[in-house]
């Protein structure tokens, strides 16, 4: 099984001893690069939304629909999931599979309640007359937060997969890096939400 790491990090054969140039292992560097790419993705989405936030075409405005206390709570829920994610990583590094699973599941559940909250929020907005077809404001709001929600959902899938692997006994402590990578992704998605919450919801 260990060979998987060897082949997929590219440190084959005689190269094992040779540390990478950046000091980061390949997977971690790749994750950072990918997240850099994601920054531009969300950057473009957020910029488009900022361009359109007042373009309401007579439909509901952001002051009509945003429920700041409600979204603050769900933002807090997502923020907490980063904490449980850190605890999951600490658990696998200690070799504590039981706690690993508890914290993975906790993170997934917190993420899922955030998605549930977002689903409820979307429904409320639609009832208030704001859809993707109402105005550029509506289009850009739903597409931006929707893509963020999709990222959270993929994160939850990864967390549950890790949970299952651990349950099957196929996630030894030597694979802690896998959890670390899921964590990196998860924290990134979390940070993006903090930006969205600040810029989209709180920004006057």
């Amino acid at each position, binding site marked *: *099984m*260990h*060979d*998987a*790491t*060897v*082949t*997929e*990090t*590219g440190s*084959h*054969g*005689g*190269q094992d001893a*040779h540390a*990478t*140039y*950046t000091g*980061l*292992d*390949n997977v971690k*560097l*790749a994750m950072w*690069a*990918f997240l*850099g*790419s*994601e920054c*531009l*993705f969300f950057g*473009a*989405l957020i910029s*488009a939304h900022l*361009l*359109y936030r007042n*373009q*309401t*075409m007579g439909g509901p405005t952001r002051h009509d629909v945003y429920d700041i206390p409600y979204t603050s709570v769900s933002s807090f829920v997502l923020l907490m999931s980063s904490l449980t994610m850190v605890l999951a990583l600490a658990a696998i590094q200690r070799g504590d599979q039981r706690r690993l699973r508890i914290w993975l599941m906790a993170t997934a559940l917190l993420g899922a309640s955030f998605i549930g909250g977002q689903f409820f929020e979307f429904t409320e907005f639609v009832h208030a007359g704001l859809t*993707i*077809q*109402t*105005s*550029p404001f*509506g*289009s*850009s709001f*739903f*597409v931006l937060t929707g*893509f963020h929600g999709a990222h959270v959902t993929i994160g939850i899938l990864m967390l549950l*997969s890790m949970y299952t692997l651990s349950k099957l006994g196929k996630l*030894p402590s*030597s694979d802690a890096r896998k959890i670390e990578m899921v964590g990196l992704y998860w924290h990134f998605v979390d940070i993006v939400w903090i930006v969205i919450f600040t810029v989209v919801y709180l920004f006057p």
Partner: protein
Amino acid sequence: MATVTTPTPWFLRRPRAKNGLWSWVTTVDHKRIGILYGYTAFVFFILGGLEALLIRMQLATPDGDLVSADLYNQLFTTHGVTMIFLVVMPMGAAFFNYFIPLQIGARDVAFPRLNSLSYWVFLFGGLFIYSSWLFGGAPDGGWFGYAPLTVGGDFLPGDHRIDYYALGLQILGVASIVASVNFIVTILNMRAPGMKLLKMPVFIWMSLVTNFLLLFAMPIIAVALFFMTFDRTFDALFYTPAGGGDPILWQHLFWLFGHPEVYILILPAMGIVSEILPVFSRKPLFGYSFVVFSGAAIGFMGWGVWAHHMFADGLGPAANAAFAVSTMFIAVPTGVKIFNWLATMAGGSLRFKTPMLFSIGFIAMFIIGGLSGVTHAVVPHDYQQTDTYYVVAHFHYVLFGGALLGLFGGLYYWFPKIYGRMMDERLGRTHFWLMMIGFNMAFGPFHILGLKGMPRRYYTYPSGMGWELWNMISTVGAFIIALSVLVFMHNWRKSKKNGEIASADPWDGRTLEWTIPSPPPEYNFAEIPTVTERDDFWHRKYKEDKRGRPIPVPTGGAEMHSEASEAEAEEGHGIHMPSPSYFPLIAALGMPIMAYGVILNSWFIGAVGAIVCLAGFYGWVLEPATDESH
């Protein structure tokens, strides 16, 4: 380490085929993937070329009616999309794949299976776009697909043509991002010991810059295309003016991607030329660090010039002036490169082998494209030039005269390494001269046509405009180009079969790929080399005398070194190469299925695609690391 207690289910076992079709389908070897990229790109090059010939036949005379307006619009759109996204980009990727590991002294890329994923995603993306020809017509909104033409209900004929464009480019974007992550990690992490950043070959540098541009540019067009798809499929209002959307947003997003994209197309060719010139001049690249830094400078400045595509949009004089100035100054690093190439050749011992001819052709043509580019930045006159054939001339001089000639040079240069045989020089020269003549006949007149006011994207034109002669010359030139490509194909086939056997180092090369046998063994380097110098291999072969002239080192050279280590490898020191896998193919297959789901407005098909994709990724994660028989 951990032993597998339960036997691996059949569908997770890694494929074993070493030969035949299945071995190519499941390969994760960067060299084979490079070859797949190259051949696929070439097939698309033929298709894009045929589209171009039809366009030129239509425009050869006034009031041409070989094709209808409707077909013409599909032809010029797919010609552009094909040449940019399915030819020049993947041809660059072919070189990245094959030669990045070889030039940095690595056995493979960082993520072999991701590498195979990017190829399959690219292939399926290309096939997806081309499948539109069978289902109601190809995209017809131009390669930059300006809204609202491309989002409005009945502004264009055909229901889904633009969906093929939007979704197809989206799929191709996935391939590009995956590949860029892979190459960035490979270059940053996996260089042979001693190869510090400023000892990397220039091709590696340009690859690094290109892949960073891809990494940051592709997500932007992804967003732009998602907006387009949402507008078209779910009646969102991003670019729909009637609903308050702004069509200029598309242009900003598109060109914010699109201008870096131009450098994505040209930088690999610049890297290749920077490799070829020193070898055939027997001199190191002049001003290495200036060439590298100007490449990086182009990479940065490329983000600040996008609105020069939009001078006639009415952005206002302040924006136009700012972008005019930034556009003018991006010519400086480009000029620095050209001067350094000239200085590399000056004082050298020039051998005019085919790769060298193409590199010189590249420089000569790129100068023209660069100069016409500067004239575009003169905004008040760009109001006249823009959207005319003058612009078409400019970008064919940089993308064909530049990128493609450079890539052809690379093919001739590295053919011996790939196939262990030399390409025929006589046919190579014939190809070169035919192509140069055809190219200048086809695209030189575009300058004049543009200055005489011929707009782009006209399916026909009346007589009496003074355009007849130049259009006819251009059409003849296009056919000469086609002839030159036939010569190239003939040469390729013939040389692959019967070409003179190539040694490991047929050109007296300078970089690490020439230290290993031609063709390279699967593991590339029996022993990972240690690098001490820039152009390390050259310095193993030559010392400099007091006057700075090279004198051969008797024990240098590749043969001894590689023979010894090859023997070692044969002895079964077993270099473990990554096992083949079919999961990248499965994961990639899910993407066009999802895209068809959007087009057919079927959640079911979309879900099937997503499941195929997920199944591919789960198999990927779960399959054992190696074929267990080993």
